[in-house]
């Protein structure tokens, strides 16, 4: 019986490890395949124009064969940064509050909020943004700062995007903070640190890599969001000079045009190049944060 059991155990192990290796290989392959697919799809364009020219030029007129991505790249970076600075501090503070100070029921409530926020389709976020955020910014916020704005602008996009990245960032931040052993808190508290000092010096330190990962993923998420953003951001091919001007981020470019223009090879190729550019931006960005974390850990 035991022998049978060991044999079974061996097989369970073998199968499970086989499956693990297979899916890990697959998950390794998927990003590579997508990256490669994007390169292949954008090849017609890359073949025709120099890469530096594509990303350095502002001239966008695809029907006349002019493909300059500069404004889109800048738009993407701006809106992502903006949404990051709007959401990251809020999420971090909220996560700390909920896991350390708030009564338990509030945290439980927030889990439902997170689940629902994650599940609301981006179209709905976009429509909501048009109904609530755009008029708010166009009619009230922009005038306060002395700008005239239609409300369809970088800031609206940033706000909507920030709200959309809340569930992802917040959830991960909460998990990271919750999993820090309570004994560490005890240790710091018994040294006479205030609760806040404990959070600042011990919790945030212990959770550092998790926190950075959460914020990092939040940014990545924001960088790739399409529909909701494009509904409020104004979609003007330009480099915005302030947050009350319209911008045109890369994902919006794809979503605005793909379905209707995919039968035109150069156009489709340009849209896939946009996706490739996003991919590259995220990878560069990841290299940066990784280097940061790694350096610090040393």
């Amino acid at each position: 019986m035991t022998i049978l059991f060991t044999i079974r155990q061996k097989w369970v192990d073998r199968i499970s490890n086989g499956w693990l290796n297979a899916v890990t290989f697959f998950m390794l392959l998927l990003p590579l395949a997508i990256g490669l697919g994007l390169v292949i799809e954008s090849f017609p364009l890359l073949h025709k124009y120099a890469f530096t020219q594509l990303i350095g030029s502002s001239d966008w007129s695809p029907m006349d064969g002019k493909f300059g991505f500069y404004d889109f790249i800048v738009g993407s970076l701006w809106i992502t940064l903006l949404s990051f600075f709007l959401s990251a501090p809020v999420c971090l503070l909220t996560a700390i509050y909920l896991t350390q100070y708030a009564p338990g029921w509030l945290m439980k409530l927030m889990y439902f909020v997170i689940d629902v926020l994650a599940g609301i389709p981006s179209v709905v976020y976009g429509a909501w943004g048009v109904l609530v955020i755009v008029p708010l910014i166009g009619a009230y916020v922009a005038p306060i700062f002395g700008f005239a704005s239609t409300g369809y602008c970088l800031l609206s996009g940033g706000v909507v995007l920030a709200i959309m990245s809340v569930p992802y960032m917040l959830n991960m931040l909460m998990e990271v903070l919750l999993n820090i052993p309570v004994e560490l808190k005890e240790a710091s508290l018994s040294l006479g640190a205030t609760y806040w000092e404990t959070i600042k010096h011990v919790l945030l330190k212990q959770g550092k890599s998790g926190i950075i990962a959460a914020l990092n993923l939040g940014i990545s998420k924001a960088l790739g969001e399409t529909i909701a953003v494009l509904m409020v951001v104004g979609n003007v091919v330009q480099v915005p000079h302030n947050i009350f001007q319209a911008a045109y981020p890369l994902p919006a470019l794809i979503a605005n045009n793909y379905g209707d223009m995919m039968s035109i090879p150069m156009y489709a190729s340009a849209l896939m190049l946009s996706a490739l550019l996003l991919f590259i931006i995220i990878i560069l960005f990841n290299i940066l944060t990784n280097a940061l974390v790694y350096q610090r850990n040393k």
Partner: protein
Amino acid sequence: MKKKIEEQFFLWLMRLATGSVMFVFAILLLVIIKKGWHAVSWQIISEVPQGGFYFGKAGGIFNAIIGSLYLAFGSTFLAVIIGLPVALGMNIQFARNKRFVRILRFLLDALWGVPSIVFGVFGFALMTYFHLRASLLAGIITVALFITPIFIRALDEVIRTIPEGLLEASFSLGATQTRTAYSVFFRQALPGFITAVLLAFGRGIGDAASVLFTAGYTDSIPHSVNEPTATLPLAIFFQLSSPIPEVKQRAYAAALILTGIILFISIVSRLFTKKYKKNIL
């Protein structure tokens, strides 16, 4: 004294932050409810589109509800059976190979930023290559591809926080890596697992762009995975773009129904896991 002020200051800041998240959520929900409430009826939940549905006439979005549930459950299931081993493996079986894990994390993170429409395009390209038509199956696969990285990384961050002592404890009892992964780490990470699943599920049920090209859209309920299917986000999307106010209102009703579905699933799954939670370190 200064410390007190600092703590109080941050405490208020934190309350403000939490309040603003709640506030925004409330406004979001309120707008959806206000716009969609009147259109919610038994008919819209239980019927498929009838003649002239898209002109504000009779019918419902039962096709989309069912389609979305099939799609979201199917793809979440796929994401879990692919993602769970990977997330555990990164912290157990492959833990020694730090560089490999770093690269894997790195690549998965990059996938977070790929717009879902690109996954749709990717899925569509594969479908065209294999001469397949839009179908539930294609939708499930595409959505799974795109929620799996989300699931893996969300879970991975939770598993990473598990103390090494637990790994040692289980190994020294002679447990295999597999058993350690599924009996010990999985258990310890269970609440995180549930949240990660719900996050992936939410993303899967809420995304329109990736299914647009792959699952198609139809007014009938799919009877097999080879048939195309409607989904709630697409239903919302179509109806929002209608010139007819009744139809637009139904888009919000659909959003409300979707919210209800998510809330229901969220409550049920969290209640279900509550009893396992107590054993966590």
